[in-house]
């Protein structure tokens, strides 16, 4: 299959190949710097975890840096670094991914690591125990952040049935109780070639890359591609609320509306709606959210900042496999109570939810999204992320459709989606109220 990504300058063809064992391989040549980025993606995330096993996917990700059959633990992180490379990984609700970006000379080592990780991780019992406390430390570090605590509580309140409800890092007791064998079973079930996509982007020659990939990955047995849980969240019947009270200095308010999945026709109009409300973020989970959106003329920014009510406003609509949440987060100015802020947010949202959106706002939102799509393709690392992310979470070839899908959004669609999606009955309101003990 050949396709191309519209924002790249050179418009080189994207190679998409499937090995006999089911592994999908995407190779994009980009010859702007002597670098290559390799990402391996797995269709497993916290949505795939049952009761008592929350956090398994993330902990498995940690264990996949702790040694394989042919790479001792102490060498795992240094192989790529000797070439000046960086490495990392992350787990979220739908996916787990690992990456290395380094000089092109390191490509073979990068593929070697990823092939080992796919089939030959050790899950040594002592290493699992040592990592248990590391993961708990990561969880506790997150719990130090009141915004993260509020996000966890809000998500758990908004979902009743869907496994999106529990945090990716897992619930503390599950991390304390899970065994090495639980983790290894999770690894064996989901880390098979048919559930994986390997992405290579950079200063490489496609045919050569495909030969190297075949050499490293072709030996891995196909296994059985896992069946993922099929869960539909039942309709929400009325507004839900959650309030967190804890020591702190700053109150926070967070709204969560049930959102469309990335494949739903509402997704792109909703993305434009978010640009109108809080400024366009783009769609790169890896990098877009590190740069503030252009939001000075957005509806909620102008409504709240100009009245001195809030000092931070953020919106987030992420591409997910199943319907997740569209969240709006607010930090009130000192002296502004949460009820006053909430009332102001509802006042600002009310006309939008009734469809009062100008064509010019839609035009500006689409223009912002176009710019963000260009900005977020600024490196081989980011291009590789986007190719693998959309292939894994949404489906083959979706990445190249982003710009046309945004271009096709009409003002009528945005108004209609706002009317249907910004309903109080679809909303969960979260509040963090600091206790004054400090």
């Amino acid at each position, binding site marked *: 299959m050949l396709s191309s990504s519209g924002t790249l300058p050179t418009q080189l063809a994207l190679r998409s190949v499937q090995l006999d064992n089911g592994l999908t391989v995407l190779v994009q040549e980009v010859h702007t710097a002597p670098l290559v980025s390799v990402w391996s993606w797995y269709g497993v995330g916290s949505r795939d975890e049952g009761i008592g096993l929350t956090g398994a996917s993330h902990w498995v990700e940690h264990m996949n840096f702790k040694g394989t059959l042919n790479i001792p633990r102490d060498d795992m992180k240094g192989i790529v*670094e000797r070439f000046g490379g960086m490495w990392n990984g992350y787990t979220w609700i739908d996916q787990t991914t690992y990456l290395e970006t380094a000089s092109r000379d390191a490509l073979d080592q990068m593929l070697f690591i990823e092939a080992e990780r796919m089939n030959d991780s050790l899950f040594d019992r002592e290493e699992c125990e040592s990592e248990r*406390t590391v993961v708990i430390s990561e969880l*506790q570090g997150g719990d130090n952040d009141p915004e993260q605590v509020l996000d966890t509580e809000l998500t758990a309140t908004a979902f009743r049935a869907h496994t999106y409800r529990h945090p990716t890092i897992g619930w503390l007791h599950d991390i304390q109780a899970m065994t090495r064998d639980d983790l290894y079973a999770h690894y064996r079930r989901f880390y098979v070639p048919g559930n994986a996509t390997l992405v290579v982007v950079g200063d490489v020659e496609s045919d050569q890359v495909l030969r190297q990939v075949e050499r490293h990955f072709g030996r891995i047995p196909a296994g059985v591609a896992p069946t993922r849980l099929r869960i539909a969240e039942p309709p929400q019947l009325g507004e839900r609320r959650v309030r967190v009270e804890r020591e702190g200095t700053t109150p926070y308010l967070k709204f969560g509306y049930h959102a469309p999945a990335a494949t739903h026709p509402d997704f792109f109009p909703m993305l434009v709606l978010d640009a109108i409300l809080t400024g366009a973020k783009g769609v790169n989970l890896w990098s877009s959210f590190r*740069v503030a959106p252009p939001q000075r003329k957005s509806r909620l920014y102008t409504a709240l900042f100009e009245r001195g009510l809030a000092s931070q406003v953020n919106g987030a609509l992420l591409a997910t496999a199943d319907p997740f949440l569209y969240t709006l987060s607010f930090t009130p100015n000192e002296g502004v109570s949460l009820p006053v802020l909430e009332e102001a947010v509802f006042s600002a949202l009310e006309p939008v939810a009734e469809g009062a959106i100008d064509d010019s706002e839609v035009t500006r939102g689409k223009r912002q*999204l176009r710019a963000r799509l260009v900005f977020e393709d600024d490196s081989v690392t980011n291009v590789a992320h986007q190719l693998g992310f959309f292939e894994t979470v949404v489906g083959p070839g979706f990445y190249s459709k982003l710009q046309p899908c945004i271009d096709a959004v009409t003002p009528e669609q945005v108004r209609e989606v706002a009317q249907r999606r910004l309903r109080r009955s679809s909303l969960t309101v979260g509040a963090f109220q600091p206790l004054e003990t*400090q």
Partner: protein
Amino acid sequence: MAASLAKGLSPVRAELSNGGVILVQETVMTPAVTISASFRAGSMFDPVDLPGLAYLTGRAIDRGTEHRSASMMADELDERGVSMRVSSNRQALTVSCTCLAEDFDDVLAIVADIVRNPAFPPLEIESRRSEALTILRQNEDNPAARAVDAVLELLYGWHHPYGRPPKGTVIGVESVSRADMVAFHAARVRPAAMSLAVVGDVSPDHALERARQAFDDWAAEPPAPATVAVPPLSQGRRTRVIAMPGKTQTDIAYGFTAIRRLDPRYYAYWMMNNVLGEFGLGGRLADNIRERQGMAYYAFSTLDATAGEAPLLVRAGVDPANVDRALAAIDHEVAALAAAGPTETELAETRGYLIGSIPRLLETNQSIAAFLQTSEEYGLGLDFDQRLPSLLGSVTRDDLHAAAADVLDPARAAIAVAGPAGSLV
């Protein structure tokens, strides 16, 4: 291919008659351009009784000019999908953004207007002040931020510019007046203190021409020269404990004062810090605290590059029950590196990593702009990326050992620990 970085950077530099410096690097990865105007106007210039002046000036500088109201500017930026970033650290105040290549001329003109003609409208100042105060309040609730602020004050003292938080304090930010900001801008945001980096899908000739149009007629004398005082000598090990009820994890910041960026030993220090707390998951520190003892999600060290003696900071976030063990592990690794230096393997790995990472450090337009501006600030030359491998390659194991022995001494460490009450050292 034009503008490929296969052989490194090929920047063009021009100096204006008013002393301003323009740096341009063409790249072709995306049809976008990063513009960054950086001034020697960071928090080191804050008066001791007004910490936060540079930070608040930065937050308000892009909210209206003599030619554009805040609303007009918001329109012009939002219509193009551009978010203006103004950052303020110890040394520099930087106005930067990324725009589509087709918008370069217009956006460069806006950047020039922002830095040359800010109006500091009173209403906008109050709005930005509220934002800044919220951020400072959030930091008060953040154990990591509290630990770092405390250890820097222990190391440098409040009267040294590196001993105060770059964002200032609540009292400082509340006290800054519009007149203070106007005066700070007039004194520090001057062309001779500027390096303007333009990196992206634009030809150097065009970028230089437009930059000259935007900045050449900006008449102002160079700002008064500034020096950074030598920090006080450590009188011994000092510890500060910050009780934060309700928190679940404790943050440790453990540090020393090190050397200036232009000290010839800088490269040895850089590599020594990589061995101590960067290589792999976080050097020897992470290997001990995370990998072998499973005590922390993160343990690492940092060495800043600054005009004055920079801090070398060890950081770790640990279970409150493990603070003593974590401090003992840090003491052990610090003392061991000082006593015996790195192994030959560590030297080779660190050298390979730092030299090999140069192309990756130049992967994005933003990172290239920052690299060029740092090189300009310290007079490292337009070919610094080409010379860096030999600078790093010539550092010996003895050099690293000497650097470690010089700075790493647990008996002289400053330590700040912030976390839940009742479980601290």
